[in-house]
C-alpha cells in the first residue's frame, strides 16, 4: 500500500515526517497505523515544537512530589497529602461548539486529576474572547460559560476562580483553559504506567463512538473557513457519567488492584495506551474487538482515534479483573479487559484476528519529531513600544470607562453561573485576588489564582511573562498564602512563524525567572499552538495557575473595604513606569503600546512577605493588589463591594495618568481599623507604606482630580458584562 501526499497531509504529517516514519518502521504503515502516527506526532501529543523550550522551565523543589510528564503534577501540602493539579486548553473545540467544547475541557482536566487518585476539590478557568463588537464574541462567551458551569456544577466541583479578558486578537480563536486541583495521599498517587508482563489492560467508563476523531491533529491546525464545517469532531460531555467514574476509580484505588491508570484524552485509546507503555518501558497488545462500541460499523481507525469522553484505561494486577469489574458495576459502569502488557516494546492492535497495528512504542513517543524552530524578535515591536503622547484630561471619566470596559468590568455574571460552594469548603470564592479552599478532613487551606496579562507579554514577552508570575505570587500573598507550585498553559500562534516562536521562547524564559524567584516550580502544564485565524496570531498568552498554602489559623482578609473609618494605605514603591502597556493606554489610543512594567524581584518578594506578616498578625482587614487599571481601579474595586467612599492621595509623580492608571508591579492596598501606622511600618520594614486616606462618605475622591459617586460606579461596573452578554440577540435554543 502507499498513500498519496494529500492523504498523508490530511493526517497532519508533513511529507518529511512521513518519510521519517517509513524509515523508522522499515516499511509503509497500514491505514490505521498512519492515523496513529499522525495523531501521536501531532503538536498536541508530541510537543514537537515546544519541547526544546519546556526543558528550560523551573520544575523542581523539595515540595514537588510529581513533576511534569504525568497526567497532572503533585505538590506536598503536609500531613502526608499532596495537591494534584493541572491546567489544560480546549481552545479549538470551544470555538467550534462553545458549550460542549468548554464542558469537555472541564471534564478532561478533572479526569487528569482523579486519574492520579486525587479527589478534585476546586476548579478554575481562564477565558479569552474577541472584542465585544465581534459578531461571535457574545455567542462564544455565553456558550463557554454555560458549558463550564454545566459540567463542573453537575460533577460537583466548586469553580472558585478564573480569569477573563477580551481582545481583537482572539476574534477568530477563543481560549478556554481549565484548571483543576485535587487531593491525594502521597503514598497513594497513581501513575499512568503499564508494567508487569501479562498484566491485563482494562477499559473502563463510557462506550466509544466516533466523537472527536482527529481532535489532536485539529488542535494543531490553523483555523480556516473549512473548519467551521468540521462537524464529526464534536465531543459531547456527560458529567453525570464522569461523576460515577470518579467515585468508581477512587473506590477501586482504596484497594491494591491497580498498576497504572490513565485517562483517555486527546487521541483517545491510542495516546493513553502508548503513553502508558512508554512510561513503563513495555509493549501492549490490544484487541479492538473487545472495545465497547456505541455505534455500529466502527473500524479500527475509529476505535483508536475516537475522543469519546469519560473513558479510562488501567493496567490491573494479575487476577484482579473481577474485583475491578465489581466496583465499576456498583457504579453502573463498564469495565472490560481489552489486552495485556508485553515485553517487546511494540504496540500492537488486533481486529477480527488480524494484527492491524504493530508499531514500536519508541517511534510513537520518544522518537517523535522534535523541532527547534527559528526564533526572531519582530522588527515591528520597537514601534509598538513607543508610548504615544497622550494626556489624561478627565481621570474620573476614564476611571468609569475602565470599570465598564470589557476587561475592567465586574465578573460576577460569570461566576454566578458556577457553583463555587459545592463541597462546603470554599473559604474565599471568586471575586478576590485568590480563592481559598479547605482541604477536607484537615485544617489545611490552599489558595489558588490564574493569571496572564497578555498585553504585557505581547509588548515584551520575557518581562511580561515574568510579570505574570509576579502577579500570581502577589495574588497568593494577598490572601495570606505562601507559594507552593504552579501549572501553565502556553497559548500561542503558529510556531512556524519566527516571531511567534520567539514569543514562546522569551515567555518561557520569563516564566522561569519568575518561578525560581517566587519558588513556584511548574509541576504540570499544557501547550496550545497554532492559535490563529485569517493569518493573524492570538496575543502570546502564557496562562499560569498558581497554588499556595495558608499558615494555620490565619484569618483570610477581604479584598474590599468593609465599612467607613478604615485607614487605607498602599504598600510598595510609588509608580514610576508611566502608562506603558497599561489598560488605560490601550483604551485611550485604541491599540497596545509601550513596554510592560519591569519586575524588581527582591522588592516584590519583600512586599509579599510583609503582606503575609500583616495578615498573620491580623493587623489589616483588607488586602487587594494593584495591577491592571492601576491604583485607581484597585481602590475603586475596594470601594464598590460594600459601597464605601474614600478620600485620599496616591503616591507618585505629577503625571496623573501614570500615577492613577499605571500598572507598576509591587504594590498592594491594605486597610486597617485598629492598628496604627507605626506598628504597620514596623512590620513592613523596608517596604514603603504610603497612607492614602480614610474610608467614608459616598464618593471616591483621589488626588483632587477624581471625584465619583461610588454607588454609580458600582452599578455601572456590575451591569456591564451582563448587559453585553444577555443582549437579546444572544439567546439560543
Amino acid at each position, binding site marked *: 500500500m502507499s498513500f498519496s501526499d494529500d492523504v498523508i497531509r490530511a493526517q497532519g504529517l508533513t511529507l518529511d515526517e512521513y518519510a521519517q516514519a517509513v524509515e523508522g518502521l522499515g516499511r509503509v504503515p497500514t491505514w490505521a497505523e498512519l492515523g496513529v502516527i499522525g495523531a501521536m506526532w501531532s503538536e498536541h501529543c508530541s510537543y514537537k515544537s515546544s519541547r526544546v523550550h519546556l526543558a528550560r522551565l523551573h520544575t523542581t523543589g523539595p515540595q514537588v512530589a510529581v513533576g511534569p510528564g504525568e497526567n497532572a503534577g503533585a505538590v506536598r501540602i503536609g500531613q502526608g497529602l499532596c495537591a494534584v493539579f493541572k491546567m489544560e486548553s480546549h481552545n479549538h473545540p470551544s470555538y467550534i461548539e462553545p458549550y460542549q467544547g468548554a464542558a469537555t475541557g472541564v471534564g478532561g482536566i478533572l479526569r487528569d486529576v482523579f486519574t492520579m487518585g486525587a479527589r478534585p476539590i476546586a476548579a478554575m478557568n481562564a477565558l479569552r474572547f474577541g472584542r465585544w463588537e465581534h459578531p461571535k464574541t457574545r455567542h462564544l462567551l455565553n456558550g463557554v460559560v454555560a458549558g463550564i458551569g454545566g459540567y463542573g456544577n453537575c460533577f460537583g466541583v466548586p469553580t472558585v476562580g478564573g480569569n477573563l479578558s477580551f481582545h481583537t486578537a482572539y476574534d477568530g480563536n477563543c481560549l478556554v483553559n481549565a484548571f483543576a486541583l485535587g487531593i491525594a495521599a502521597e503514598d497513594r498517587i497513581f501513575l499512568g504506567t503499564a508494567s508487569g508482563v501479562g498484566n491485563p489492560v482494562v477499559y473502563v467508563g463510557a462506550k466509544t463512538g466516533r466523537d472527536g476523531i482527529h481532535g489532536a491533529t485539529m488542535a494543531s491546525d490553523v483555523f480556516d473557513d473549512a473548519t467551521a464545517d468540521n462537524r464529526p469532531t464534536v465531543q459531547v460531555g456527560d458529567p453525570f457519567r464522569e461523576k460515577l467514574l470518579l467515585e468508581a476509580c477512587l473506590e477501586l484505588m482504596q484497594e491494591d488492584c491497580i498498576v497504572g491508570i490513565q485517562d483517555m484524552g486527546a487521541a483517545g485509546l491510542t495516546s493513553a495506551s502508548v503513553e502508558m507503555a512508554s512510561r513503563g518501558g513495555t509493549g501492549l497488545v490490544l484487541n479492538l474487538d473487545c472495545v465497547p462500541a456505541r455505534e455500529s460499523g466502527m473500524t479500527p481507525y475509529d476505535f483508536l482515534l475516537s475522543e469519546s469522553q469519560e473513558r479510562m484505561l488501567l493496567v490491573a494486577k494479575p487476577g484482579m479483573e473481577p474485583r475491578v469489574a465489581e466496583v465499576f458495576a456498583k457504579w453502573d459502569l463498564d469495565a472490560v479487559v481489552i489486552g495485556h502488557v508485553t515485553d517487546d516494546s511494540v504496540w500492537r492492535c488486533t481486529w477480527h484476528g488480524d494484527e492491524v497495528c504493530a508499531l514500536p512504542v519508541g517511534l510513537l513517543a520518544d522518537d517523535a519529531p522534535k523541532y527547534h524552530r527559528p526564533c526572531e524578535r519582530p522588527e515591528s515591536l520597537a514601534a509598538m513600544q513607543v508610548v504615544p503622547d497622550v494626556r489624561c484630561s478627565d481621570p474620573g471619566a476614564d476611571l468609569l470607562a475602565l470599570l465598564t470596559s470589557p476587561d475592567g468590568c465586574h465578573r460576577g455574571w460569570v461566576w454566578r453561573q458556577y457553583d463555587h460552594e459545592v463541597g462546603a469548603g470554599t473559604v474565599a470564592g471568586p471575586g478576590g485576588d485568590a480563592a481559598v479552599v479547605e482541604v477536607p478532613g484537615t485544617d489545611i487551606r490552599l489558595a489558588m489564582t490564574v493569571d496572564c496579562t497578555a498585553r504585557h507579554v505581547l509588548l515584551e514577552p520575557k518581562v511580561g511573562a515574568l510579570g505574570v508570575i509576579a502577579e500570581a505570587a502577589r495574588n497568593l500573598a494577598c490572601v495570606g498564602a505562601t507559594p507552593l507550585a504552579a501549572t501553565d498553559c502556553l497559548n500561542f500562534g503558529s510556531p512556524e512563524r519566527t516571531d511567534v516562536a520567539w514569543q514562546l521562547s522569551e515567555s518561557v524564559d520569563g516564566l522561569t525567572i519568575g518561578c525560581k524567584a517566587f519558588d513556584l516550580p511548574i509541576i504540570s502544564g499544557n501547550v496550545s499552538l497554532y492559535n490563529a485565524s485569517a493569518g493573524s496570531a492570538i496575543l502570546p498568552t502564557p496562562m499560569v495557575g498558581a497554588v499556595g498554602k495558608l499558615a494555620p489559623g490565619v484569618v483570610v482578609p477581604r479584598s474590599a473595604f468593609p465599612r467607613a473609618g478604615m485607614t487605607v494605605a498602599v504598600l510598595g514603591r510609588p509608580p514610576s513606569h508611566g502608562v506603558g502597556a497599561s489598560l488605560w493606554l490601550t483604551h485611550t489610543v485604541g491599540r497596545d503600546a509601550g513596554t510592560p512594567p519591569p519586575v524588581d524581584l527582591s522588592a516584590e518578594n519583600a512586599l509579599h512577605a510583609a503582606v503575609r506578616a500583616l495578615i498573620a498578625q491580623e493587623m489589616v482587614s483588607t488586602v487587594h493588589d494593584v495591577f491592571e487599571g492601576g491604583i485607581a481601579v484597585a481602590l475603586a474595586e475596594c470601594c464598590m463591594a460594600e459601597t464605601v467612599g474614600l478620600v485620599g492621595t496616591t503616591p507618585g509623580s505629577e503625571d496623573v495618568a501614570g500615577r492613577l492608571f499605571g500598572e507598576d508591579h509591587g504594590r498592594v492596598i491594605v486597610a486597617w481599623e485598629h492598628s496604627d501606622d507605626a506598628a504597620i511600618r514596623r512590620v513592613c520594614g523596608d517596604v514603603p507604606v504610603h497612607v492614602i486616606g480614610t474610608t467614608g462618605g459616598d464618593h471616591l475622591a483621589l488626588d483632587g482630580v477624581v471625584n465619583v459617586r461610588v454607588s454609580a460606579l458600582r452599578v455601572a461596573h456590575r451591569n456591564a458584562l451582563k448587559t453585553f452578554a444577555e*443582549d*437579546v*440577540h*444572544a*439567546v*439560543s*435554543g
Partner: protein
Amino acid sequence: MTAFVTVMLRPGILDPQGLAIADGLAGLGHKGVQSVRVGKVFEIALDDADNVQERVTQMAKDLLANPVIEDFTVEVR
C-alpha cells in the same frame, strides 16, 4: 418500530425558554411571531410492534411527563 412522545408544558405554566426564544427571534428580525412554546420529544425505538401505543403511553405516564406541569401526546410511525 419507533414511537414519538411529545411533552409540552401545560397551558398556564410559565415557559421562560419560549419567551426568551420569541424575543430572540424578534431580535434577529423575524416578524410576526406571536409566541413560542418549547417542549421535548422522545424518539423511542422498540424491539417489537405489539401494543406500542399503549405501552408507550404508559412509559410517558410513568416517567417521561410530569402531570403537574406537562401534557403529552404519543405518535407511532
